[in-house]
């Protein structure tokens, strides 16, 4: 127990110390700004550790930075935009060579990105996009195509019910309100299912990408909507929470209510293999190697495409059983 207390004290001291010196000068020598053979310094502002997907993403970035010989300055924004802006500002002050970040929400980035541009620090977006009109504010965007993911989920649903004429009642668990994956997965899904009027989204609420809220929202859905055929959850964790709610209501997840989720984390794939989820659209978090490549190119002044899409696939229950033993996350 003493170890834990001392760990706590150390954590506390570190946090206070960090709060004290953020914005102050950092003594690691990185004032050069990407001059040739010097070690590249990357400032990375992560969203948080809100899901298994995110931690796999963090790990991949940290590991591949080490392999690529890039010094990584990492910050965790705990899902708050203001924390992320603070982190990016401190990277600008520390004069890192390249800034990479996954925006918590889509809007409100122009000012801080202007500052980065003025300081001549290239910015790479990872995983999530910003809605800024001025695309010169960032060099490239590496990440999944969330609209495409939503479309894949919708397409599976359309194929499943192509022989049926009955109306299909769908409930949707949205991600964090305003975030790119929530907005895009929702719109991609709607684009596909809106072709056929038998598909009806009867309820849609934010479950904030977490299991606890996914469960709570699903409980309410189950009570206010007696007939639910399909659940479309914007990530595995909310789907897993909803599965508990569905089981609690005496229904069988995957049979009475078909479940589609996105991400393909380990726990999600396990549930898919167990038959509790019907279909998962993959969203690959292992983007570290691609990011480091891009960073090197950007710092060297090479041109990179404005949009780089990560390799992704989808999984059915049978496929999940096959690949589950060899999954990395």
């Amino acid at each position: 127990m003493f170890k834990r207390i001392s760990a706590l004290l150390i954590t506390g001291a570190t946090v206070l110390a960090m709060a004290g010196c953020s914005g102050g000068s950092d003594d690691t020598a990185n004032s050069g700004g990407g001059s040739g053979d010097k070690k590249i310094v990357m400032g990375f502002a992560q969203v948080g550790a809100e899901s298994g997907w995110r931690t796999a993403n963090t790990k991949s970035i940290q590991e591949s930075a080490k392999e690529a010989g890039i010094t990584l300055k990492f910050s965790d924004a705990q899902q708050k935009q203001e924390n992320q802006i603070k982190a990016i500002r401190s990277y600008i002050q520390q004069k890192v060579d390249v800034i990479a970040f996954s925006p918590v929400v889509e809007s409100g980035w122009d000012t801080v990105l202007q500052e980065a541009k003025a300081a001549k620090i290239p910015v790479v977006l990872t995983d999530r996009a910003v809605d800024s009109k001025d695309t010169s504010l960032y060099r490239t965007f590496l990440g999944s195509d969330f609209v495409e993911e939503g479309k894949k989920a919708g397409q599976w649903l359309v194929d499943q019910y192509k022989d049926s004429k009955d109306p299909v009642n769908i409930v949707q668990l949205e991600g964090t309100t305003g975030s790119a994956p929530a907005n895009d997965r929702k719109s991609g899904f709607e684009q596909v299912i809106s072709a056929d009027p038998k598909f009806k989204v009867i309820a849609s609420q934010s479950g904030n990408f977490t299991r606890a809220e996914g469960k709570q929202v699903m409980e309410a859905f189950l009570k206010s909507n007696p007939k639910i055929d399909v659940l479309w959850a914007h990530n595995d964790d909310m789907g897993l929470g909803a599965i508990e709610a569905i089981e609690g209501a005496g229904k069988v997840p995957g049979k009475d209510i078909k479940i589609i989720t996105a991400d393909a984390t380990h726990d999600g794939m396990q549930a898919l293999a167990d038959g509790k989820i019907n279909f998962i659209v993959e969203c690959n978090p292992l983007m570290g190697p691609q990011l480091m490549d891009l960073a090197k190119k950007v710092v060297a002044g090479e041109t990179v495409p404005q949009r780089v899409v990560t390799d992704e696939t989808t999984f059915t229950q049978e496929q999940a059983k096959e690949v589950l033993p060899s999954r990395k996350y």
Partner: protein
Amino acid sequence: MTPNLTAFLRHRLFWPVAILVGLLLLNLIFTDNFFHIEIKDGHLYGSLIDIFRFGAPLMLVAMGMTLVIATSGIDLSVGSVVAISGALACLQISELGDQNSTGGVLRAVGVALVLSLILGAWNGLLVAGIGIQPIIATLILMVAGRGLAQLITGGQIITVNSTSYKLIGGGYWLTLPFGIIIVAVVLLLTALLTRRLALGLLIESVGGNAEASRLAGIGSRAVLMTVYTFCALCAGIAGLMISSNVSSADGNNAGLWIELDAILAVVIGGTSLAGGRFSLSGTMLGALIIQTLTTTIYSIGVPPQTTLLFKALVVTIVCLLQSPAFRAKVFHRRRRPTGAPPVAEEKVSVTA
């Protein structure tokens, strides 16, 4: 107005109850089957049961918070304690050979609660021993505690598969949600200790004037230590409930912002942030109002983009209705030119 009706309208808990009833009426109009309760798989099932089930952790945290606020303190660290206790319990259970073994689960629960007590004692030490302002003292653990929770979970979500652990937050006993039984027991004990014994009086006295209480012979440091430790214990139990409900520990999100909800519940319940008096029953009502509001939003389908605005509106109305000064201005403008202001009477009411 008859004297009886006036007394009823003036009762401390009249407005919280009225607001709760109002929210429920909203559901009666907009949601089918909201009041429908049935027996499913041998336990009660329905929206109202959900409110109690999901509200139980908040009720516990708010209960501890009430006592802390009564000493004119505040505890911002409860959310972190929630995360730490859930994370520690799940970590130990995930390492068990047989996750369903009652002994192993009990041990994990015990260790998590002991750590919560220690964290509470740490808060108490900073506030009572060193004399740091409560908001700063507990801010330390609020920030550092999240880090500690992530340290325990290794940044991952720990999933457990234990039916005995599941009971705490997601299970049922005698058809009732187990969580609400825990809340009832803790509430009963707290009410006994504070209202049947002198502890409540001591807490209020310390909250009213710590220095005067000390001079009067009250060990105010011991009282402060007790309330902060108790508050952390409540948060620890709530953390077990939250993680047990979804069979997983999420160091980053479990109990996030619950301290704000708890403070809100306390305030809605009529406990003054200045300390010196408290109402446990008011706090319980406050927590129920907050949970009913959340469930209402999901049930009647308020669009996610406007959820926060809707909540803010309701909370604003609640707070305005709770304020005697506001009510005096709006409702009694013409009828109350003379006589004592309505605030005077409220100051002396300290019964449970």
